[in-house]
């Protein structure tokens, strides 16, 4: 199982490196969205709740872009059939794709967070970085699990570009809640503080529950 996952993961990352389909688009989208927010809100700097919200919403929508493209190549070019013929555990595809999405999200954040700090964020990030990284990672795990599941569900339907976001957005609301509430004290101008434990627990619980569920049901999507 581990070898299968490693092999699949390697293939995914290699394809992405050669075609550069998802990650540059996602990152560019995030940066552009920050610019749009500047004009839409008519503000030069944001802090606290507002900053937290802008960051998470932008990351969420950029992630959706990645989710949309996750299985497209497999669906269009017979990757599913090839995989089904191999004598391997089918959940390996879920794990590999989820890890791929996680990797995309990490790279996305490596671009988006500094861009955010540069363009819109009022208070300096410095001390809050470790906390921010932790919260983002927890959120990414949940997005990866649910995003992969939704991508697999939507890719072989007729309106795949539409159904993907429609399915993913409500499912990801708890992550937005947990993530935004957790990072908002980090961006506070007056008294920056650490993230509240309850939000970290919420994110963790979500990751656990949906990770398990995705693992349990994914096989059924691959049957034909």
């Amino acid at each position, binding site marked *: 199982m581990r070898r299968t996952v490693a092999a699949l993961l390697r293939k995914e990352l290699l394809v992405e490196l050669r075609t550069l389909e998802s990650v540059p688009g996602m990152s560019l989208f995030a940066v552009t969205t920050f610019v749009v927010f500047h004009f839409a809100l008519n503000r030069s700097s944001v802090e606290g709740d507002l900053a937290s919200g802008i960051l998470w919403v932008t990351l969420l929508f950029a992630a959706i872009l990645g989710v949309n493209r996750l299985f497209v190549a497999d669906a269009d070019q017979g990757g599913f059939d090839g995989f089904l013929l191999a004598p391997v555990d089918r959940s390996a595809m879920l794990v590999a794709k989820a890890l791929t999405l996680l990797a995309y999200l990490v790279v996305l954040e490596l671009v988006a967070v500094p861009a955010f700090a540069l363009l819109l964020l009022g208070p300096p990030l410095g001390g809050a970085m470790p906390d921010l990284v932790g919260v983002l990672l927890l959120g990414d795990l949940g997005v990866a699990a649910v995003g992969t599941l939704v991508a697999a569900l939507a890719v072989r*339907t007729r309106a795949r570009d539409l159904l993907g976001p429609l399915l993913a*957005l409500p499912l990801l609301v708890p992550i937005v809640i947990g993530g935004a509430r957790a990072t908002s004290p980090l961006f506070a101008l007056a008294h920056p503080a650490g993230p509240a434990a309850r939000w970290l627990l919420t994110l963790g*619980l979500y990751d656990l529950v949906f990770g398990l569920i995705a693992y349990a049901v994914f096989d059924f999507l691959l049957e034909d």
Partner: protein
Amino acid sequence: MSSPSRPASGAAETSQRPRGGGALYGSGLRTLSIATVAVMTLGLALVFFYAPLEAEQGFLQKIFYVHVPLAIVALGGFVIGGLLAIQHLRTRDPRWDMRSYVAIHMSLIFGVGALITGSIWAKGSWGHWWVWNEPTLVSFLIVFLLYATYQPLRFAIEDPERQARYASVFAITAGAFVPMNFIAVRLSTAYLHPRVLGGTSSLPGSMALTFMVCLAGIALLFATLCKYELTAKHTRAQVRALRRRLAGESATTQARRPRSAAPTLNPAATMSARAAGRPG
């Protein structure tokens, strides 16, 4: 006549029901509906003639007895839809998919009812048609938005077996999402404001009794309507099967069925297998 062999089309119910279908869902419907009428009438009577007026909100609080049961039953229905979907994936019997579909459909309708009555309550007590600091309403909105994609998802997949399978995967994921979402929203709103519409904890005895009866009534209503829907769908499927038999079972009839988001039962295979077994 022993139980017929499994036909190639994979309609799994043939080996389970040697008769051609029978009163699969209709039996017990009458008892259930009578029970529903009795309990709901009792509940309504209790609400208006027995339950005391609440101190803060006065008469407006009576909406509580219709809004909260609707919400609870709808949420329960979504979770049940997920459990039924698990059964479908385990047994591959399309009847479980049908039950899951009906449960989710009915919960969506009850959920709309919960949203509307909640909105009316918000308007009455706060003057706004929508309030963000009532966690039940907010998490309901999210759940509603999620389940509103159930039908489009089904409709977007043409092959009925795949449609049922993917729908079951969705129902399980969404069913697990319902409690998770409720927790998350509850945490986020309680953090900011006190709850507007009041919780169900610490209810005086007479109110608690009234609430329980109303909850039971709405739950029975849900069960009755689901059973009713399943009976109607099954009847329709049997009529279609009968039509196919009388028309001589041409292949074109089969293909002519339009694309739909709803699962359909296929007793045709059952009936043809049964007729083949009979001496004539």
